[in-house]
């Protein structure tokens, strides 16, 4: 059973409301202190966990996928250079910039900021927030995962039916 739980834990990532609420509070504080526009918490597979701050007009799914892909590419580059991975990425734009920080082993924190703040402020406050977010994610990771993970019993059959309607 423990092995099954571990397998499930390794094959899915489950966020409950209280988990996301804690994460949102932490990110809200970070945005206020650093003066950033918005922040995304993305898992390494490219799924968006939560977004806080100003709305982004672009597709959030695409942004999450690109952030994860970009980080994965640089991580591979780091390994080729003899590093474990690069814990922080920074892309500077003309009006806005984005900093991506590794959170624990599973997630990425992407912060978008503009001229209202500066990189030093963002990095300074991101360090502590990343540490607290890592603790939250570790608690989630080591929690027992039920096989159904809270999904309704007819989820799969309903989903398959929805597929028939869609296609």
């Amino acid at each position, binding site marked *: 059973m423990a*092995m*099954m739980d*571990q*397998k*499930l834990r*390794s*094959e*899915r*990532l*489950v*966020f*409950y*409301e209280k*988990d*996301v*609420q804690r994460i949102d509070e932490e990110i809200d504080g970070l945005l206020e202190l650093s003066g950033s526009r918005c922040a995304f918490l993305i*898992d*390494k*597979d*490219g*799924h968006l*966990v*939560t977004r806080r701050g100003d709305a982004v007009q672009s*597709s959030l*799914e*695409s942004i999450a*996928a*690109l952030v994860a*892909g970009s980080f*994965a*590419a640089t991580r*591979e580059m780091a390994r080729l250079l003899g590093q*474990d991975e690069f*814990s*922080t990425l920074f892309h500077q734009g003309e009006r806005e910039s984005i900093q991506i*920080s590794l959170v624990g*082993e*599973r997630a990425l924190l992407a912060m978008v900021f503009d001229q209202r703040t500066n990189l030093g402020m963002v990095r300074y406050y991101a*360090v502590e927030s*990343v*540490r607290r977010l890592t603790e939250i994610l570790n608690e989630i990771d080591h929690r027992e995962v039920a*096989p*159904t*993970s*809270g*999904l*309704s*019993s*007819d*989820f*799969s059959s*309903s*989903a*398959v039916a*929805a*597929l*028939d309607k*869609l*296609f």
Partner: protein
Amino acid sequence: MVQINFAQKQVNAKIVYYGPGMSGKTTNLEIVHQRAPAPNRGDLTSISTDGDRTLFFDFMPLDLGTVAGMRTCFQLYTVPGQVYYNSTRKLVLQGVDGVVFVADSSASMVEENLESMRNLEQNLAEYGKSLANLPLIIQYNKRDLPDALPVEELNRLLNPYGAPCFEATANTGQGVFPTLKALAARVLESIHSGNRGQGSAPVGLPQTGFHPAPNLTAGAGSGAPRTLQQTGYNPMPQQPAAQQVQQPQGGRPIPMQPGMPQQPTQPGTQPGTQPRASYPEQLARTTVHAPPGGNGLQPIPMGQPIQRLPQQGQPQMHPQMQQQMLQQQQMQMQQMQQMQQMQMQQQQMQQQMQQQQMHPGTHQTGFAPVPPSMQSPGMQIQSSPGVTLAAPQPGGSLGMLRVDKGQGAPPPAAAQKPRSLPAAKPAAKPAAAKQPAAPAPAAEAPRIQPRTQPMPTPKGGKKRLVYAAVFVVVALGVGAFVAKMVLSVL
């Protein structure tokens, strides 16, 4: 890796289209993007070369809608098929929940198909996954080619696991949606049940690595070639429990941290637990510390100008700067000494003038001596009207300013032989010089009479005093000017 977010009420799964180069993976995605209902599809993001060859990945989110209170989304990815981009393909496979293998039905692409299938197995193995227990659908694309191999042949070569397979012609859209629908269903079933995979591996085949499919008609029961369908989804027949292959002990390590490549485990160690320095620690390692303090200066001998020592922790002054400061201080000291000398000389002059007043006729000319030390090349002393400059006398005598009083020409003897005074003589000297002068008046007894009455103020004495005062002021001004010039030069 499926993400179930109860806060957002969303279920996310990742599907990857895999296969050799130019097999039709991106075409599949484009067809889905074109024909899927607009509310259900997202933007198609392609990272490709100028020649429209996938460079990193293509991505498109597909929203299935709300199912059992949960918004169900599939993220569809394609990988670059060229062998050159193997490392990139591996990155995209991270967290995959289901794979569509798009094979090229052309007879000339058999080797490429096999190589791609082996590569898929290898890359999945790095994440601790295998085609044996991962939802897999095989699509035999380009069925419209004249040299397309029979499906049975392709199945024999590429489908050892008995995965559902579909024929397709992606550029026309045929077979695209049935493929996607079949895989999505299997992924959804695996989400709920936790039982991944489409079936057991055939008997005798290893868990990892790809080998050509054995003769599946031998009655092994592991999955005979299925009847292909153009549309619809036909689930695989369930395998009898007795024929399920036992997982070899320790054959596939269960990943402790998904998304990370597997580390070779050693007794007593836990994989994936390499300590990693926190960001502040990494920052501290790169901090550049200031060089240690210490003046490194020699002891200053007495009498020398006191040099300001750099405080500990502060950067030391450049040696040249230190020398310049020393020189400036020395110059200042010299200037102060010269000023003092000038003042002393002026005092002497005043005393002498007082003596002259007491003894009129001895000296008619006034002068403002300029010390040789104060004279510099190119120095110009402006003369005021009525004042003529006397050239410096040989032998180091002073240069003097001779003033024409305008009250008659001075005595020729006095004019030709101006009286010179030593530069720095103590104040007692005039008193000493006075004594030898005493006999002179005695020798000139007929001219000078001993005084018995207070000496009356000679005519023009006040003017002489005024002129003397003027000379003193001018001398002071000249000295200050010269000092300023010297300082500016330094």
